[in-house]
C-alpha cells in the first residue's frame, strides 16, 4: 500500500517538478537541462509584456477579491439563520455560480455584455461622451461574481458552527447590534473572511477561462501563458509558471492556516 501511495504522490508531483527543474536550465531548449542558471527568471522579470500582464492580473485579483469578500461576507451574514424563499433563491444562485462551467459563464457574460453595451453605448456617447467596453471592469466583475460565491460558502460555514448563545448573551447584556457584531461575531469569523479573500485572490490570479472571454484588449498573466504555450514552451514560460505556482501556493497555505486556527479557536 505504501508503494502505491508513493507512486500516486510521484504522479501528482512529477509534472510540477519538471517545470521547476527546466526553469533553471541555462540552455535555450525548453526540453533539456543544460547547466544551471537563474537567467530565465531574470529574463522573465525584465520582459515588459510579462510585467504588464502580471500587473493587470494583480489589479484584477486584488479588486475582485476585495469586492467579493465584502459583498460575500454581507450575504453570508444575512443568510445565516435565515429561512424562506429568499434563502432558497440565494442557495440556488450560489450553487449555479459554482457549478456552471467557467467556459459557459465566460461566454454567457461575453455575449450578454456585448449586447448590452452595444445597446447603451450610443446613449452613453451622447450623454457622457464615453463608451463601455470589455476590459478591467468586466474582468473584475466576472471574477468577483464567481469568487463571491466561494466567500459566501466559507463565511457561512464558519457562522453556522459558532455558538449563537454568545450573540444572545451580548444582546442581553445591553450591547447594540453593531457592538455585538464588531466585538463578538467579527473576531470569530475574521479568519474565514481573510481565508475567503486569499482564495478569491488566488482564483482570480490563476483563472484563464473566464478572463479569456471578457478581457477585451487586456492581457492577464494566464492569458499570456496560454498564448505563449500555443507558440511553444520556452524556459522563460517555465520560470513564469514556477513563480506563479510558488506565489499562489504561499497565499493558499496562509489561507489554510487561517481557516484551521479559526476552527481550533471555535472548538476550544
Amino acid at each position: 500500500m505504501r508503494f502505491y501511495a508513493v507512486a500516486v504522490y510521484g504522479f501528482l508531483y512529477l509534472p510540477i517538478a519538471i517545470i521547476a527543474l527546466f526553469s533553471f536550465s541555462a540552455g535555450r531548449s525548453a526540453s533539456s537541462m543544460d547547466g544551471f542558471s537563474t537567467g530565465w527568471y531574470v529574463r522573465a522579470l525584465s520582459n515588459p509584456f510579462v510585467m504588464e500582464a502580471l500587473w493587470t492580473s494583480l489589479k484584477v485579483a486584488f479588486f475582485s477579491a476585495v469586492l467579493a469578500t465584502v459583498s460575500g461576507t454581507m450575504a453570508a451574514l444575512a443568510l445565516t439563520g435565515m429561512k424562506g424563499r429568499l434563502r432558497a433563491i440565494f442557495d440556488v444562485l450560489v450553487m449555479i455560480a459554482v457549478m456552471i462551467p467557467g467556459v459557459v459563464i465566460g461566454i454567457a457574460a461575453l455575449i450578454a455584455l456585448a449586447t448590452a453595451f452595444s445597446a447603451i453605448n450610443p446613449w452613453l456617447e451622447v450623454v457622457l461622451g464615453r463608451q463601455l467596453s470589455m476590459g478591467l471592469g468586466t474582468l473584475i466583475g466576472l471574477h468577483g461574481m464567481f469568487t463571491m460565491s466561494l466567500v459566501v460558502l466559507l463565511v457561512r460555514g464558519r457562522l453556522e458552527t459558532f455558538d449563537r448563545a454568545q450573540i444572545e448573551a451580548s444582546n442581553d447584556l445591553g450591547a447594540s447590534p453593531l457592538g455585538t457584531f464588531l466585538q463578538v461575531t467579527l473576531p470569530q469569523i475574521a479568519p474565514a473572511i481573510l481565508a475567503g479573500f486569499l482564495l478569491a485572490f488566488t482564483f482570480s490570479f490563476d483563472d484563464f477561462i473566464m478572463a479569456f472571454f471578457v478581457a477585451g484588449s487586456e492581457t492577464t498573466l494566464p492569458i499570456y501563458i496560454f498564448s505563449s504555450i500555443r507558440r511553444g514552451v520556452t524556459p522563460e514560460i517555465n520560470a513564469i509558471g514556477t513563480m506563479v505556482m510558488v506565489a499562489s501556493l504561499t497565499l493558499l497555505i496562509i489561507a489554510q492556516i487561517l481557516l484551521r486556527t479559526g476552527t481550533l479557536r471555535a472548538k476550544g
Partner: protein
Amino acid sequence: MAITQARARALLLTPAGLWYAALLLFPLAVVLIFSFGERNPIGGYAPGFTLEQYANLPARFAAFRNTLTLAPLGTVAALLIAYPLAYYLAIKVSVRWKTTLLILVIVPFWTSILIRSYAWIYLLGGNGIPALLEAFGLGELRLINTPFAVLVGIVYGYLPLMVFPIYVALEKLDKSLLEAASDLGAPPWRSFLQITLPMSMPGVMTGSMLVFILLTGEFLIPAILGGGKVFFVGNALVDLFLQSRNWAFGSAVAVALIVIMLIVVALYTRAVRRFGVRRDDVGLM
C-alpha cells in the same frame, strides 16, 4: 424588531443580489434566448424564434461524444486511483503523518491548472515517455494530442478532488465495526465489501459527481493536450463564439451542456438518497 431585521437582511443581500443578477442570471437568460434565435449572416445573433439551433446539435456530435466518453472514463479512472490512496490515508496512516500527507494531496490542486497541464506536454511529448519506451525497445508511440493524453491530463488535474470526499467518508468509519467483523470470522475482503465499501459510498458519489461535472465543462486540458484533435463541448463553444461567431447555435450547445449537467446532478441526488438509506442499515447492524 422583526421588521428591522428583515430590512437589515435585505440590505446585506443587495450587493450580492445585484451582482448575481447582472453577471449570472442576465447572461444565462441571454444564452437561453439566443439559443432560440437565428444566426446573423455577418456573425452574431439575429432575433427569431426557432428550434433550428437545437435540431442542428448533431453537427457538433463529435464534441458531445468526446465529452461523454472521456468525462465518465476520466471519472472512473480517477476513482480507481483515488480510492486506494484515500483508504490508505484514512485507515493505514498514523495520525502523525495524516495531515501532512493530506496537504500534499491537495497542494497540486491549488496551483494553476494551466501550468500543471502544460507540464504534461513534456512528459507525453516526443522527448518524454515515448522516448523512454523507445529506449526500452517498445516501439514508437505517439501520446501527445491523443485522447489518451487528454485522459491523463484530466485524471491528473482532478485526482485530489476525488481523494478528499472518499477520505472524509472513510475517516468517519467506525473501526470497531471492522474489528467486530474480523472477530466474528469474516475474511478481510468480506468486511471490505460489506462494511467499508458501502460506508464510503457517499464519498465515492460526491467525488465522482464533482469530478464528472467539472470534466463535462472542461476546455483547457483538451486545448493544451489534445492539440485541436480531441475537443470537448467547451472547445466547441469557444470555436463557435470566437471563430465562427455563430452565437445562436453556440447558445444552443451551451444550453445542451447545462442540461446534461443538470441530469447528472439529479441522478446524483437520487443515488445519495438511496445510499443514505443503505448507510442507516449498516448503522443498525
